[in-house]
């Protein structure tokens, strides 16, 4: 069904980090933010093994998968996890975004080349800079409103 921009309905969203990352304040924050925007969130918590992540997403078939990582291994972990998600027929088209502090060198990780690399790898959105949260809110609002990416 097509939603109009005027009356967006809530999305089912999986918020998760990846196997090596134990930071969770980022996940708690993203869950609250998305719930305040009217969406339903499943938060998978710390250090989510690849098979658990894929299985939870396959089972729930969410409208959006949000990967968050701040421990500096996000680039690497994201590139490993995305193909595993895409290998499920149910998740071929599901929007998958990634954000946080993805590398270990600070500002240099957020630069265009690194972000472009993740987009080229198949992510639908990469959110790492200062305005990450605002840009992400716009992305989610457009998705909820059915605006094609």
């Amino acid at each position: 069904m097509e939603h109009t921009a005027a009356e967006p309905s809530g999305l089912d969203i999986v918020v998760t980090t990846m196997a090596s990352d134990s930071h969770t304040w980022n996940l708690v924050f993203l869950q609250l933010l998305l719930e305040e925007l009217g969406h339903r969130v499943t938060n998978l918590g710390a250090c989510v093994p690849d098979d658990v992540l894929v299985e939870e997403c396959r089972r729930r078939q969410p409208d959006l998968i949000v990967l968050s990582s701040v421990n500096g291994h996000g680039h690497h972990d994201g590139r490993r996890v995305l193909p595993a998600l895409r290998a499920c027929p149910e998740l071929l088209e599901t929007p998958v975004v990634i954000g946080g502090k993805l590398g270990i060198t600070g500002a240099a990780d957020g630069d265009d080349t690194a972000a472009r690399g993740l987009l080229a790898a198949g992510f639908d959105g990469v959110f790492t800079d200062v305005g990450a949260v605002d840009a992400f809110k716009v992305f989610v609002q457009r998705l909820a409103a059915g605006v094609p990416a």
Partner: protein
Amino acid sequence: MTAFGAFVARARSQGRLVVQPRMGMSRLDEMRLGLYATRNAAATTVGTLTVDSYTRTGALDEARRAIDDGTALNGYPIASYPPDVTRSLLRGIADEEFPVQVRHGSARPERIVAALLAAGLDATEGGPVSYCLPYSRLPLREAVTSWQRCCELLAAAQEAGAQPHLETFGGCMMGQLCPPSLLIALSVLEGMFFRQHGLRSISLSYAQQTHTGQDEESVAALIRIAADRLPDIDWHIVIYAYMGVYPQSPGGAQLLLDEAARLSVRTGAARLIVKTTAEAHRIPTVEENVRALETAAVVAGEEGRAPRTGIADTGIHEEACALIDAVLDLDADIGRALVRSFAKGRLDVPYCLHPDNAGRARSGLDSSGRLYWTDAGAMPVAGRAGAGRSATGSRELLDALSYVQRTFDERAFRTVAAPLPLSP
């Protein structure tokens, strides 16, 4: 044999604060340079090997792959380098005058402990609760079993003539927003767990929180309780410079570290683990670490000459004792008592998502910046109803998380912006 505890005790008896970095790189030349620079810093230092996230979570194949293709990790992959490699990394640097500790954040650390012992090291840290709930999704029961085994491994090394040292990370649950009574209780309980499983030299941690007066009272309480409950083993207090969202400006970060150094000296702590001006942004460089060590040592030296003031009692000692007793009442085996306490919510870490945490407790900051319980869940302590609000929305959560960052960035900005005195 590096005799970590003896080194710290000696420095303390000479009135010197031991300072230590959080430092770990995956490249051998960088790691060696980091240890060398720490040893040679103008301060009384001990060295650190901070372990990377893959090794922490048991993904040794990923760590190996990163070594092979030269990808830089966020720490030193101690279980993937052969013991000989770590031995040569340490050769000529680590000795009685410069003990090195392995810091790892692992809920199931058998392989890390085996690797450090094989490399001739015997000082490490963590704990069955503090390295499980904030660091993993492993059932607490399994973490307790694993930590018991690791304590026994270290204790066996003791029998063989080493002087192993184990520090509890209990004074830093989630890095931020955990009221001090629970930090103190977990630090002491993990210390008692270590003792129960054979350790004879330990340290108890406390991480700087949001209010200096509250921190001073907390460390004093921790010392009193430790003296009471751990009378027959060697222990010292280690302070962690703030472990939550850090100031973004170099000036703010430095002011916060200065405050941690003063806290350490004023409370009589023996050791301080520093944070650098890069903390809010990325893994620090060796130079940034050395600067943090040296500036903390200078501030500590100055503080040593300042007069002491009295500490008010707002009830932290009593609250921590109530939590400790509520756990010890459940079972003489401290590991089992801890598991049962979390299952019943007698211990409950605010905002912790781990499946074995009750997740009912909430905390907040009052108008003076003190941390307190807005909801203590099923813990045997009273929440301070009406004293403020818990962080329930995303905005409020970020506000509470960034209180220290904001306060110190503003302080640094005011210091810089203050008008210069007119020259005569």
